[in-house]
């Protein structure tokens, strides 16, 4: 039986068609993945199903009956529940209080918390959620909070559960647990729609997958009959290579020389503790390490955003220790920051304005103190085209762009300034395969042009794939160098955990 049928759904937003004649059929008792790049229209479609948006055209059938879903309450009544990516929980409240919030079944205006607690306990046991109904939200882990969201939908009697990118916030261990829970749910007769752009998860969890690209359905396929490469191609619209083409190259002279660098973190602890590092022209140096071992502080110290206690930084032979950010930028350092919303972009600025964030004060963007908007727009247009930033135009606030396109905008800006030394921190965090591929290509391109690239990433895969050399950082020091061609995950893991190793150069 088809529990959900969405036929010819079209939804337009100013300047964009988010959903274009989308057909989606979900069978009872399956885990159905909705795969697409960021901004492809997956979330819009699910928000329509959940009643948060109204479609401009099309029909929805639930359990083979046509329905009009005018709001989440109606969706709830139809047995549709949604587990949002960003939890909607009241922190000081208990699990039970959060679950009954908005659905308080009261008698003469009195809540029966005990009864609700019992019901929640029962549901938790039935689906193996292991949630304590009396725990406070503030006290439980992110994974547990997500399960509270699942319980919330079950408590409201949902048979069709929509998961909106549920794994984005979870640790690998929690992801495994979630997979199990989802299996249990379908075993008990529920149906799941799973929004994601991670191919591995689809292969390991789902039954069927519908691929959406630029607002249109490309294909619905059985997971058993496909593979990651095929899915990636469907999603992006062309063959995606998971390996990065990279020729062997002889690196040139050292561009960056960092010696005995010491910098404090915000608590005054030595986050960078006597670090030495050298990056040469025409090479990518990967910095591997467990999060919080001084990576952030190191980058900030290099770029002038953090005070340096001692040690020195030389760029192109010039002493750049304790230079202001602008001086560092002018000395030829590009920086793709690890948090694009925090540092990388002014979200309320337009795409154009963000493209000149560091160079706005120079000709031709400013003449005699006056900003030259025409010049800036021309420049932005060129970068948008060259770097394939998907945006309606250069005048929209960059906030409205998808994460991948925001990141592409930052990379366009940093790369086009043609720096001798490019720092790329978590350059692909949260992005889909298409965007990741293009960003990786750009980094390698910089290396091939003879620039020095420092890649800081928590994704070991990425570090090993792109780097010519890998430095392992542990407690603010480089504790070892490995050759990405020959090293093993075990060796790296040992180093990252503080184990010793002799130099492999």
């Amino acid at each position: 039986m088809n529990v959900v049928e969405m036929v010819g759904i079209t939804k337009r937003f100013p300047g964009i068609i988010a959903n274009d004649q989308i057909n989606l059929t979900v069978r009872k008792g399956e885990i159905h993945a909705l795969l697409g790049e960021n901004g492809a229209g997956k979330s819009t479609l699910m928000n329509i199903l959940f009643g948060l948006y109204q479609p401009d055209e099309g029909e929805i059938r639930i359990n083979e009956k046509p329905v009009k879903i005018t709001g989440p309450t109606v969706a709830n009544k139809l047995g549709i529940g949604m587990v949002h990516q960003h939890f909607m929980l009241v922190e000081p409240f208990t699990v039970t209080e959060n679950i009954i919030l908005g659905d308080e079944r009261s008698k003469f205006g009195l809540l029966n918390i005990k009864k609700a607690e019992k019901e929640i306990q029962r549901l938790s046991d039935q689906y193996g959620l292991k949630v304590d109904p009396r725990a406070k939200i503030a006290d439980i882990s992110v994974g547990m909070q997500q399960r509270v969201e699942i319980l919330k939908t079950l408590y409201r009697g949902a048979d069709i559960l929509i998961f909106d990118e549920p794994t984005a916030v979870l640790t690998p261990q929690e992801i495994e647990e979630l997979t199990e829970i989802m299996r249990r749910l379908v075993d008990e007769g529920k149906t799941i729609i799973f929004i994601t752009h991670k191919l591995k998860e689809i292969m390991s969890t789902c039954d069927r997958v519908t691929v959406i690209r630029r607002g249109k359905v490309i294909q619905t396929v059985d997971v058993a009959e496909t593979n990651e490469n095929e899915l990636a191609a469907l999603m992006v619209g062309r063959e995606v290579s998971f390996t990065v083409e990279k020729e062997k190259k002889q690196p040139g002279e050292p561009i960056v020389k960092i010696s005995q660098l010491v910098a404090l973190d915000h608590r005054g602890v030595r986050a960078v503790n006597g670090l030495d590092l050298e990056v040469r022209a025409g090479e990518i140096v990967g910095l591997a390490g467990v999060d919080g071992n001084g990576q952030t502080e190191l980058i900030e110290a290099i770029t002038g955003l953090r005070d340096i206690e001692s040690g020195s930084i030389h760029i192109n032979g010039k002493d750049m220790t304790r230079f202001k950010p602008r001086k560092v930028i002018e000395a030829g350092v590009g920086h793709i920051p690890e948090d694009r919303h925090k540092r990388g972009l002014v979200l309320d600025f337009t795409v154009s304005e963000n493209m000149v964030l560091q160079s706005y004060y120079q000709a031709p963007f400013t003449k005699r103190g006056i900003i030259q908007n025409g010049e800036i727009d021309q420049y932005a247009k060129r970068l948008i085209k060259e770097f394939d930033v998907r945006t309606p135009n250069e005048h929209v606030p960059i906030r409205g762009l998808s994460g991948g396109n925001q990141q592409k905008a930052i990379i366009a800006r940093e790369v086009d300034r043609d720096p001798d030394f490019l720092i790329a921190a978590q350059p692909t965090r949260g992005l889909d395969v298409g965007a990741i591929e293009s960003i990786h290509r750009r980094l390698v391109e910089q290396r091939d042009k003879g620039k020095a690239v420092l890649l800081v990433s928590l994704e070991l895969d990425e570090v090993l794939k792109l780097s010519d050399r890998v430095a392992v950082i542990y407690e603010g020091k480089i504790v070892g160098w490995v050759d990405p061609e020959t090293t093993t995950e075990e060796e790296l893991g040992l180093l990252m955990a503080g184990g010793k190793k002799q130099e492999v150069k």
Partner: protein
Amino acid sequence: MQQLFSRMNKMSTFLASLISIVLGMLIGAIMMVAAGYNPLEAYNALFVSALFQPYDLGETIRTVTPLLLTGLAVAIAFRTGLFNIGVEGQFIVGQMAAIIVGLKLPLPSGLHAVAAVIAGGLAGAIWAYLPGLLKAVRGVHEVIITIMMNYIALYLSNAVVFHLLAPGADSTEKIPDSASLRVQWLSDLFGGARVHLGILIALAAAFVMYVLVWRTRLGYELRAVGFNPLAAEYAGMNVKKSVILSMMISGAFAGLAGAVEALGTNGYLPIMNDFTGIGFDGIAVALLGANTPVGVILASILFGVLEYGGGNMQFEAGVPFEVIRVVFAAIILFVAANIVEKIFHSRRKKGVKTNA
């Protein structure tokens, strides 16, 4: 195409403000009916007398002038991520500095007024420097500091009048004509009203704000720092300098407001029992004007008309002025809570549903 959309967006903001105004006046009307007054007669008295007689029009413009400047002061701070609630205090020191120059610095006509106006703007900027500095260097929230600076300004001004400018009197002498912003032909044009050259300064300030914020390198920096100081720092901007500067620019506008009010309207500085309220009204003006120069001009005109016309309404229709305060408050509430747009949106949704 996209520009069309953004223009439509602007239009709908304007329309939402307009509807908020009408709704606010409607609430005022309901109050009047409830209290046994005739709202049509009252509003008629308000608008007709504020706008259609030369004298009253002149006085309305006079009322609008400082509101426009304080509205701009608040708006420019908002644009750069700061909430300058100290406009009132900066206004007061602006008044004070202008009057000091007006009384104590013998200068030739023309130059005297210019010097006094500049002194007022400078005083406002200096008064805003301290909160800006504390915000930039110590991270102290500007709202707290500026509120306290308001009181300091009030009592400083009173102390200066009492001890220095007019020992033992309640207010200073009038400034000489050389420092006045009043000009005979302008007054004559408006039936002897106290309209003065300050309105030209205020309009020029609106233009300056537009150019400064949206057309200059400095404005780009100020906005970037306002929206996202961390990104601004990353991009090599001097965040501390920007915060201080934007406070000072805002303060300068507020100081100018005080200066033109002192030099144009009153010509003297009294010992004040309480705040003038013109600085605080600037917050409402900026809010209604959506922090844009044109919006602030329109909003200050509306508030000026209501403020001045409200007196006439009391005179001719016998309706207490408090009703106008209610109308003010209702309009601000509608704008601040964005109620109109919410109504619009739910309508739009419903419209779609019927198509579906």
